[in-house]
């Protein structure tokens, strides 16, 4: 309770003249009558002939002072610091990211958020409506706009914390779009995260942020887990982060999970390794596990923290040692050790070598080294040193000792590739076809072309590897990886090895497959008719997902991906700094946290004052004929009340 203009309380001094007017006798008109004898019979109490009369408390004075008090109180603009009232239309965005599942006290942060929203539902004005948006991996409408409190509570109860990040910006955009169509629309965001100030400032609708989350969370989490394949074999890389303020002890255990098969769906996990570790405060520890079992397909790391751990979803992570059987590559060459070794080092590629003229079909990528491709072949192919009349690109001669003069820096083929130290002895002189662009040129002559020809991606390298020092440079394997990635994006890295929960995973079934079978962790396989490009979105549950391409129930390829939180921001349970959120709200021009709205009480005070004045008027004119002149007299001279007028019943007729 506070007063906006406490100086107005000084007007309470008006009570003094009111009381004085009651003490003053009123001026009366003289009227001569034959005798006052009969009037004496009406009022025996003879008044003293003095300007003052004895103060007699009465109801009219009390009512007038009460009315004055109410009006003075109204002028002082009293207010209550209350939770901000809701408007007629409210869009509530609730964060259901992984960190909202952190245990605090008896419940999770999501439980606390639900409590806040239940308060909002309870404070919803009559006729008010609310829209509930859950901000998970995507923003989605959990409850369409309704005024039904029960439906809102039911939808709220059905919300669960997801295992990934929250797409707060998406959800806010969705909420803003909904609020913009509503009169008096307002957005309330309930979250534990750091909300970018610009995100809120850009919203058209007024936005309030209700922050949840305790001040001292304790959590250890796995923030990175990846398999690195080298010549010496696969290595597992794990990073454990501690967002707390104290050093923590923990043990990490590594398991090998068998792929689920129809024959043995419940095959036991195999322990691979275990290691104790100490994670410093506000720091992390990186671990590398080598000597992984050669037959291990899925690795799972379990983190057991010593002591309290508020968030469990980041204590387990999965990694696949390979994402699949790999793309099949046919290398047609008269003999090129560089290419064989280079392609063989790339992960997930099964390289076959064929003599020129013995080209088989059914491969994902064809690499023609110095030979013309099979006529009519419409498949991803890489041409090296194409001969004249190869049917794909026109060769008009040869270039002696070309010097690389330019590269297209933005071309993904050249990502991480440094060709500045590369020297060439000779190269074919190519004419850039219409379907291709040049990534590397030597003067007017293209050295590296790429494009899509007849629906298949084609890359052309204009020189023989033996005529350059490129294979001896570090740029060579990177360039090969980029080229295979370009030629077959679905195997070259577009299907990520690990994704966040809720993310959409592109699946590109192998040519000839009629069915894609996805086996989520702990679930029965899902069968999807094969299309050129599939998007798999049912990735809410963390774990390893097995993907098989089937042709007439025959597996063409087995691969998969893992779904992991692996997010240092989510593992850091510290609530967003108030300053950041406050800045966001200040820019949005709205109240920030619950509890800082002011409910002004001056309307009730004015209503009380007017009601008391009306009661006083009624009491004064009870039994009289009301007249405008009398009312004016009463307003101007509130003390003008005769004793008879104040309370006639107190004048017994004697």
């Amino acid at each position: 309770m506070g007063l906006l203009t406490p100086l107005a309380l000084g007007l309470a001094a008006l009570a003094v003249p009111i009381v004085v007017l009651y003490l003053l006798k009123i001026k009366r008109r003289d009227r001569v009558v034959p005798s006052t004898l009969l009037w004496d019979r009406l009022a025996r109490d003879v008044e003293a002939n003095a300007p003052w009369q004895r103060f007699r408390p009465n109801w009219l004075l009390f009512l007038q002072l009460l009315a004055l008090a109410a009006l003075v109180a109204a002028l002082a603009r009293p207010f209550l610091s209350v939770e901000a009232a809701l408007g007629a239309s409210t869009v509530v965005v609730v964060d259901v990211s992984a960190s909202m599942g952190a245990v605090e006290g008896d419940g999770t942060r999501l439980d606390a958020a639900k409590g806040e929203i239940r308060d909002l539902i309870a404070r919803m004005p009559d006729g008010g409506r609310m829209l509930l948006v859950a901000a998970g991996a995507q923003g989605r409408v959990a409850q369409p706009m309704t005024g039904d409190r029960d439906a809102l509570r039911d939808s709220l109860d059905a919300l669960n914390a997801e295992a990934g990040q929250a797409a707060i910006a998406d959800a806010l955009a969705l909420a803003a779009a909904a609020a913009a169509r509503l009169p008096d629309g307002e957005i309330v965001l309930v979250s534990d995260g750091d909300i970018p100030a610009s995100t809120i400032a850009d919203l058209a609708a007024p936005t309030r942020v209700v922050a949840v989350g305790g001040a001292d969370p304790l959590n250890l989490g796995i923030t990175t887990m990846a398999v690195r394949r080298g010549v010496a074999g696969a290595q597992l890389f794990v990073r454990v982060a501690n967002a707390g303020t104290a050093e923590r002890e923990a043990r990490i255990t590594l398991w090998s999970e068998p792929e689920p098969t129809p024959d043995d769906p419940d095959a036991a996990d195999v322990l691979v390794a275990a290691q104790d570790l100490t994670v410093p405060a506000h720091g992390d520890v990186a671990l590398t596990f080598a000597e992984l079992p050669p037959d291990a397909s899925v690795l799972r790391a379990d983190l057991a923290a010593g002591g309290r751990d508020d968030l469990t979803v980041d204590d387990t992570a999965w990694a696949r040692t390979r994402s699949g059987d790999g793309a099949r590559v046919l290398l047609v060459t008269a003999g090129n050790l560089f290419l064989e070794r280079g392609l063989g080092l790339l992960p997930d590629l099964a390289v076959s070598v064929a003599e020129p003229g013995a080209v088989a079909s059914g491969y994902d990528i064809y690499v023609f080294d110095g030979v013309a491709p099979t006529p009519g072949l419409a498949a991803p192919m890489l041409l090296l040193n194409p001969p004249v009349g190869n049917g794909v690109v026109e060769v008009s001669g040869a270039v002696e000792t070309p010097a690389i003069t330019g590269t297209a820096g933005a071309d993904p083929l050249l990502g991480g590739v440094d060709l500045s130290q590369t020297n060439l002895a000779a190269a074919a002189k190519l004419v850039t076809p219409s379907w291709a662009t040049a990534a590397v040129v030597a003067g007017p002559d293209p050295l590296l072309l790429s494009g899509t020809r007849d629906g298949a991606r084609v890359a052309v390298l204009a020189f023989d590897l033996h005529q350059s020092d490129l294979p001896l440079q570090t740029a060579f394997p990177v360039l090969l990886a980029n080229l295979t990635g370009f030629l077959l994006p679905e195997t070259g890295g577009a299907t990520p090895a690990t994704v966040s929960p809720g993310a959409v995973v592109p699946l590109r079934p192998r040519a000839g497959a009629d069915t894609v079978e996805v086996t989520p962790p702990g679930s029965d396989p899902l069968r999807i008719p094969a299309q050129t490009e599939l998007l798999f979105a049912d990735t809410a549950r963390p774990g390893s997902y097995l993907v098989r391409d089937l042709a007439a129930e025959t597996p063409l390829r087995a691969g998969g991906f893992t779904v992991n939180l692996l997010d240092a921001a989510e593992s850091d349970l510290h609530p967003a700094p108030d300053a950041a959120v406050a800045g966001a709200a200040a820019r949005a021009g709205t109240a920030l946290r619950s509890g800082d709205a002011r409910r002004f009480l001056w309307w009730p005070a004015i209503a009380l004052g007017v009601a008391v004045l009306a009661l006083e008027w009624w009491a004064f004119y009870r039994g009289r004929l009301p007249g405008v002149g009398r009312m004016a007299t009463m307003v101007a001279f509130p003390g003008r009340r005769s004793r008879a007028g104040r309370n006639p019943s107190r004048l017994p007729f004697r």
Partner: protein
Amino acid sequence: MTPANDFDEAFLRRLERLSIAVRRNRAGQAVGHRRSPARGSSVEFADFRSYNVGDDLRRVDWNAYARLERLFLRLYHDDQNATLHLLLDVSASMDWGEGDAHKLRWARRLVGALGYVALSELDRVAVATVAGSVVQRSTVFSGVRAARRLFAFLNAQETATGVTDLDAALASYGNRAPGPAILVSDLLCEGFGQTGMRALRAGGHEVAVVHTLAPDELDPGEDLRGDLRLVDRESGKHREVTLDEALLARYRAGVAAWREEIGRACLDRAIAYVPVSTAEPLEAFVLGALRRERVVA
């Protein structure tokens, strides 16, 4: 000012047929139309009584002596006149009212009418004006011819000053020849003069009171509203009131109760009490209410 003899001929003729009602005959001083309690020499037989030595032998009933051999005297009624005492309140409170409803003028005409009735019946009429005391006494009028002087006396009366004290005035008037006494007053004084009325009764008078109040005393008009200081015409004392309908209703009820109270007090002492509003025409009042109350017959 309306004179006291402002009567038309027809009303005077009707007045001449009236007489002042007297319940008990009293000895008079002169021959009149009223039977005296004393035995006299009229032609109307009254009674016998035994002869005593010294009685007038002319009144002995010799026929009775012849039959009974005892001496009886024949007694005859003695017709004498009566003296009507008319007491007119001329206090300042009587100077109130508009036009014919002015209390003093109305009362003066009533006194004139009553005096004319008495004079036409060969009664004697004595008029006195009272206020704080007896203000002025008239000579005793007798004979119809004295009516002119009676009216002249009444017309000369003006409002007195000072506070009304009917008790003192009536008490000092009481030692007159007993007879009917009619007080015409608004009774606006402490105790409404009942002590004085008792003194009149003790002096042998048959007392009647005509209580005159102006119509706006009975029911104050619309202009008497609001915050007022009421000033007493006689004493100058004032009373502060805020008049509204509720209070005026109480006032009217209070006046009615006051008149009832006076009526009861008069009834206890065999005093005729006739309340009247001066709005009522005098002729109707004399021929109506006064006859009903047997003040005149």
